[in-house]
């Protein structure tokens, strides 16, 4: 008998036969569209500053992974050609899982992002080419020039007038003012005053809450013009820095000088009211496919005018396709494995583009000397230097300083211009005086040393703006602003004895610091939609760190600390990301209580660090004691010795679960379905837990070695094409060494990592040890079979692993032991590796939002976590660990701080009841933090909000626009998060306080 095929089988067979023709037809339709549709052909040309057009050249292959079917497309001379089969050395090869995926890819209804995340498609080659192809196909699909409709009103923004902005509750007056921590402020909590007492801040806050971000091509266009006219880019040491300095000079010379109404500080990071910075040298082409749609995307839409979109599409992006950090590296190293693995999303992220910014300037030195003085020193050293590369480097420092001073001068002129424009009406006098004062200050600083608080803040802001023209706007930090500014405040107050005048000065200081914090909300980092899907909600994370001790070990809490804390209380901003140091020996309990009170009032900030854990961890890494004491957080939580430590702390997001999935599949990652890691054996043949342990660590070490190789390749590219001479000029080390910070010029040169989701690995290993190897209640084969099908039909296995296996955070000795041993192993492996600046790799255990991103992409785990569920944030017990808060706190506190020098994020969600006594809640929070630090805990952060409130906010985002939450190291507005992240926050274990 002959078995006839079913209808389905027959259909599949026919589709297989015709897939090639369908794909080719789709490409041909595109080619015809590009040729004949009006207004479309221009998208195939870049436009140089002189107006000449440059035709797009690029080649693409679309193939099934088994290479049984391939089609290609070639762009040249303003045409698109298509054909069957592959090509030699295409710019991009798009690989589809099978023929069905290939058909799906060419279906106009398909979202390629989803295919990418589901591993139905992957790519090899230049991402910018893929982005341009995607853009071209959108042009044809949507029509040229579409997508510029005005945005629909954002339901999360409050309507009406600034006066109607709700005034947040104020803390209670300080019951026990700490004598050693205040000198001039009348009352450290300013409890008698609310936001209504600072109408300017209220207006600026209203502006922050009501404005949508807009993509800003200003810097990108200037830099492109520079690049296309400056001639060949030199890559030799010193010369590449000078090239960068000249580029910065050009960008800052073109940069519009802006002072908004209500501004007390001159200058803006972008040309828009809230601008999204675009760094085409650092990967901005990723937004290319969204130029027509970004205004209408669901999460975090950006405004973009048709003119700006055209600028980016034709005058900027076409000239950076080969020339950003990633592509440069890929070309130099022939598309190395570490970068190909990075593009699979589930293993790790190499965030070198952002890491280059993760630090803070040496503000005390820069302010004390003034840029003129530093410029003079660079000039002197240039004369004395013998090597050409050093002379050129010192030249680069001078040019970048001149760029800043030139911008400052233009700000002064603009302030005068605005003042002159105000009519001779007495009503305008106050503002006119302000503008004249602004002009005076910008003529003085940052060239000369500031002498007042206002001058110091303006000097910082100008340099801060300029640093943002040099490097990606991710975690360029303010640092220890209370310590930096206190001397200027004291000087201001030295001549004032009248109490009323002192009160007025304190009032002005709060306004100034609040204005600086609000200034920092004038820009956002670029988040392409895939970022929204995986991460989202993060802003720049421009950390301000308060409290702790000075370099000499004396108490650093001062008037300026209380002043900033008051601004935090009123503004409740997600960024600057506020981090507070608590030094148990030196800082008062009053100060700690204030930090806890602010977490209650703002719901989620500041995060709190224990000096007694952080300082020894830095000393262990070779930091001088004085330098370790002078630490400030960067990005999320990462300790950085202020102004002398180039720590690249956000450089690597590493999924600790990936090596586990690989160990359970003999080196194959199940999502990728490829043998990527070493063969560590079929786990069914493991006879002891040691076998599993070794397999895990073998996979971990292999995968981390890929990370090191990839990161170091990228680091070498920084050295070749992205030195940062301005940062080097305001940093401690480069001047003496004659080296840019990217070349190791800083005093300390580590690389910080985030090892994501330790908890999920610990719980999984513990479940297997106890149930499979120790007790034999479950056999490995059954467990692995259950994992293959996400526990469906294996309810008893799922119950066993969730109910009978120990969980990290419950105090079980097994999970504690596994956690400690894993951290030891990770530490040993990381700290023995070296980066391109000569420093070691440092482990950290915070996750930003990557616990959700990696979780979405990862399979089911022996811990009982199902496919696609988020991992556990930071270094926190899982929500399934049914343990009281004290036990959880103890478990985390007992981890060895020396083994986590890039810090952790320990998340606690508290939900006070409506009838709880305010003081009692603050008392209890304070007691938890004190006990945590007594036990040696490193970092702790709160969300003080009930799951019920969060659920309500998910349903009614309009009423919760300002609901602040802490993810795993950074703050976000809850309503801007993707649904997965919102659910992860809701699912976090909630602890009551009474």
């Amino acid at each position, binding site marked *: 008998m002959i078995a006839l095929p079913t209808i389905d089988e027959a259909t599949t067979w026919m589709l297989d036969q015709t897939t090639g023709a369908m794909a080719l037809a789709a490409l041909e339709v595109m080619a015809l569209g590009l040729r004949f549709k009006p207004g479309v052909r221009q998208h195939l040309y870049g436009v140089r500053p002189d107006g000449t057009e440059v035709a797009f050249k690029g080649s693409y292959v679309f193939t099934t992974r088994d290479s049984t079917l391939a089609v290609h497309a070639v762009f040249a001379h303003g045409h698109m050609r298509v054909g069957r089969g592959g090509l030699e050395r295409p710019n991009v090869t798009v690989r589809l899982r099978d023929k069905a995926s290939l058909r799906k890819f060419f279906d106009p209804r398909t979202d390629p992002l989803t295919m990418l995340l589901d591993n139905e498609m992957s790519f090899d080659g230049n991402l910018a080419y893929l982005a341009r192809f995607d853009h071209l196909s959108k042009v044809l699909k949507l029509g040229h020039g579409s997508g510029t409709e005005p945005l629909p009103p954002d339901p999360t923004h409050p309507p009406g007038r600034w006066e109607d902005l709700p005034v947040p509750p104020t803390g209670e007056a300080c019951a026990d003012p700490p004598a050693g921590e205040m000198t001039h402020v009348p009352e450290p909590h300013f409890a008698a005053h609310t936001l209504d007492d600072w109408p300017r801040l209220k207006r600026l806050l209203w502006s922050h809450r009501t404005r949508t971000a807009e993509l800003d091509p200003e810097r990108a266009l200037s830099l492109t013009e520079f690049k296309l006219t400056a001639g060949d880019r030199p890559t030799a040491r010193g010369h590449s820095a000078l090239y960068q300095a000249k580029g910065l000079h050009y960008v800052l010379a073109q940069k519009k000088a802006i002072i908004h109404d209500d501004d007390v500080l001159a200058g803006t990071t972008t040309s828009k009211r809230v601008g999204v910075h675009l760094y085409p040298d650092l990967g901005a082409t990723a937004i290319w496919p969204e130029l027509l749609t970004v205004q209408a995307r669901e999460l975090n839409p950006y405004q973009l005018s048709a003119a700006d979109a055209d600028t980016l599409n034709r005058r900027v992006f076409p000239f950076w396709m080969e020339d950003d950090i990633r592509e440069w590296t890929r070309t130099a190293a022939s598309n190395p494995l570490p970068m190909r693995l990075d593009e699979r999303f589930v293993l790790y992220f190499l965030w070198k583009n952002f890491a280059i910014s993760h630090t803070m300037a040496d503000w005390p030195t820069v302010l004390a000397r003034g840029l003129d003085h530093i410029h003079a020193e660079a000039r002197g050293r240039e004369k004395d230097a013998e090597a050409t590369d050093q002379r050129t480097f010192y030249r680069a420092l001078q040019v970048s300083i001149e760029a800043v001073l030139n911008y400052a001068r233009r700000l002064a002129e603009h302030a005068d211009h605005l003042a002159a424009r105000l009519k001779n009406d007495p009503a305008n006098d106050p503002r006119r005086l302000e503008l004249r004062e602004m002009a005076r200050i910008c003529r003085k600083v940052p060239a000369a040393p500031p002498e007042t608080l206002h001058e110091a803040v303006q000097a910082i802001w100008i340099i801060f703006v300029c640093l943002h023209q040099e490097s990606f706007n991710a975690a360029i930090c303010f640092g220890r602003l209370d310590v930096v500014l206190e001397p200027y405040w004291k000087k201001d107050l030295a001549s004032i004895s009248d109490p009323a005048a002192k009160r007025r000065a304190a009032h002005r200081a709060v306004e100034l610091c609040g204005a600086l914090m609000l200034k920092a909300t004038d820009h956002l980092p670029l988040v392409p939609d895939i970022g929204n899907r995986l991460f989202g909600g993060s802003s720049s994370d421009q950390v301000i760190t308060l409290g702790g001790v000075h370099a000499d070990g004396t108490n650093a809490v001062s008037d300026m600390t209380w002043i900033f804390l008051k601004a935090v209380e009123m503004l409740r901003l997600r960024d600057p990301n506020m981090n507070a140091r608590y030094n148990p020996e030196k800082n008062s309990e009053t100060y700690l209580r204030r930090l806890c009170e602010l977490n209650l009032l703002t719901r989620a900030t500041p995060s709190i660090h224990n000096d007694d854990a952080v300082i020894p961890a830095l000393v262990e890494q070779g930091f001088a004691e004085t330098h370790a004491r002078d630490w400030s957080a960067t990005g999320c939580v990462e300790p950085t010795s202020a102004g002398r430590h180039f720590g690249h702390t956000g450089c690597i997001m590493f999924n600790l679960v990936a090596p586990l999935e690989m160990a359970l599949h003999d080196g194959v990652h199940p999502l990728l379905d490829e043998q990527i890691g070493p063969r560590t054996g079929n786990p069914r043949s493991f006879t002891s837990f040691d076998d599993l342990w070794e397999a895990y660590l073998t996979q971990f070490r292999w995968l981390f070695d890929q990370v090191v190789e990839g990161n170091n390749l990228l680091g070498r590219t920084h050295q070749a094409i992205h030195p940062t001479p301005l940062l080097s000029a305001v940093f401690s080390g480069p001047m003496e060494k004659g080296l840019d910070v990217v070349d190791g010029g800083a005093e300390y040169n580590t690389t910080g990592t985030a090892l994501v989701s330790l908890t999920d690995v610990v719980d999984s290993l513990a479940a297997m040890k106890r149930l499979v190897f120790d007790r034999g209640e479950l056999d490995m084969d059954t467990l692995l079979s259950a994992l293959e099908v996400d526990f469906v039909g294996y*309810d*008893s296995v799922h*119950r*066993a692993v969730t*109910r*009978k296996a120990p969980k990290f955070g419950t*105090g079980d000795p097994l999970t504690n032991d596994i956690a400690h041993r894993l951290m030891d192993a990770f530490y040993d492996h990381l700290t023995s590796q070296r980066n391109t600046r000569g420093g070691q790799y440092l482990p950290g255990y915070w996750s930003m939002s990557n616990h959700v991103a990696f979780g979405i992409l990862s399979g089911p785990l022996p811990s009982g976590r199902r496919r696609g569920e988020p991992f556990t944030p930071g270094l926190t017990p899982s929500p399934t660990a049914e343990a*009281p*808060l*004290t*036990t959880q*706190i*103890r478990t985390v506190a007992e981890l060895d701080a020396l083994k986590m020098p890039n810090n952790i994020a320990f998340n606690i969600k508290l939900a006070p009841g409506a009838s709880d006594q305010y003081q009692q809640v603050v*008392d*209890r929070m*304070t*007691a*938890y933090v*004190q*006990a945590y630090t*007594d*036990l040696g805990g490193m970092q702790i952060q709160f969300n003080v909000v009930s799951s019920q409130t969060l659920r309500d906010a998910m349903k009614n985002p309009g009423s919760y626009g300002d609901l602040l939450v802490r993810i795993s190291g950074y703050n976000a507005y809850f309503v801007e998060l993707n649904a997965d992240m919102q659910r992860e926050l809701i699912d976090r274990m909630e*602890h*009551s*306080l*009474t």
Partner: protein
Amino acid sequence: MSTTAARTRRRQVLIADVKRNSLDDGPGIRSVVFFKGCPLRCSWCQNPETLSTRAEVQRSPELCTRCESCITACPTHVARPGTDVQDATRCQRCGRCVDACPSGARRLVGTPAYVEDLAHLLALDAPFYRRSGGGVTLSGGEPTLHAGFAGRLAARLAEAQIPVLLETCGLFGWTSFERHLLPHVTTIYFDLKLADDQRHREATGHSNRRILSNLRRLVDTGSELLVRVPLVPDITDDAENLTAIARHVRSLGLARLALLPYNPLWIPKRQGLAAGARALPYSHDRWLSDQDVARCADLVRGEGIEVSP
């Protein structure tokens, strides 16, 4: 190990539970030790799993999947899904059915504990007690049933500067209590339910005479003491009882007492327990209203006694 230490080590009592991070049962952050066994049989007992001095298997019927693992595991063949093993006289209370249950539908209430181990576990949270003004609460059941053990435990904790609070129903032998336990506790919460002896007998199965005399003796010792009155609807919350208790407290020279509003959450708890606990007759399943509590407080205040928050 010395012979004394060895002897000490051998002495165990059953502990029903240790609740960490408790924010009730005294000031600050506390750990509460629930001893097993109580001399009273209050009809509304909110911790019925602590009544018996013996271990018992508590079931959560809603988690049972009727997989019958318990049947296979039971050495005396009495365990069944949906039945309470300890109703059968052959049940050894060995807990094998608990270990075998894949769903966690069974819990063995009553873990043998040694003083040293328990003191060690409790001292782990010492920084939380110290920073919050909290400590350890001995509760139950009735800790004074095990005065020797509880006293040694309290002494150990006191050595570690951990304040110990005792919650008692007041029914205990004074001599043993005074010798073993009293010297080591910082604070005593003394429950007084009913002033009238006949009503006390009906509701708790015991006369209140010894309870009242213990209270008087305790007052005489000058211990830090708080009398607490559980407000049980239709049993203790009437004007006659509350007024009488307040007068009695006043006659002892005390200035205040605390009221404990009834909490109905215990009702489902007794379903999975042995016959003795299941047989508790009281079944009031509502919370007291704020007005009810305020009315009770007013009655107490009317007698010149403050009501603690």
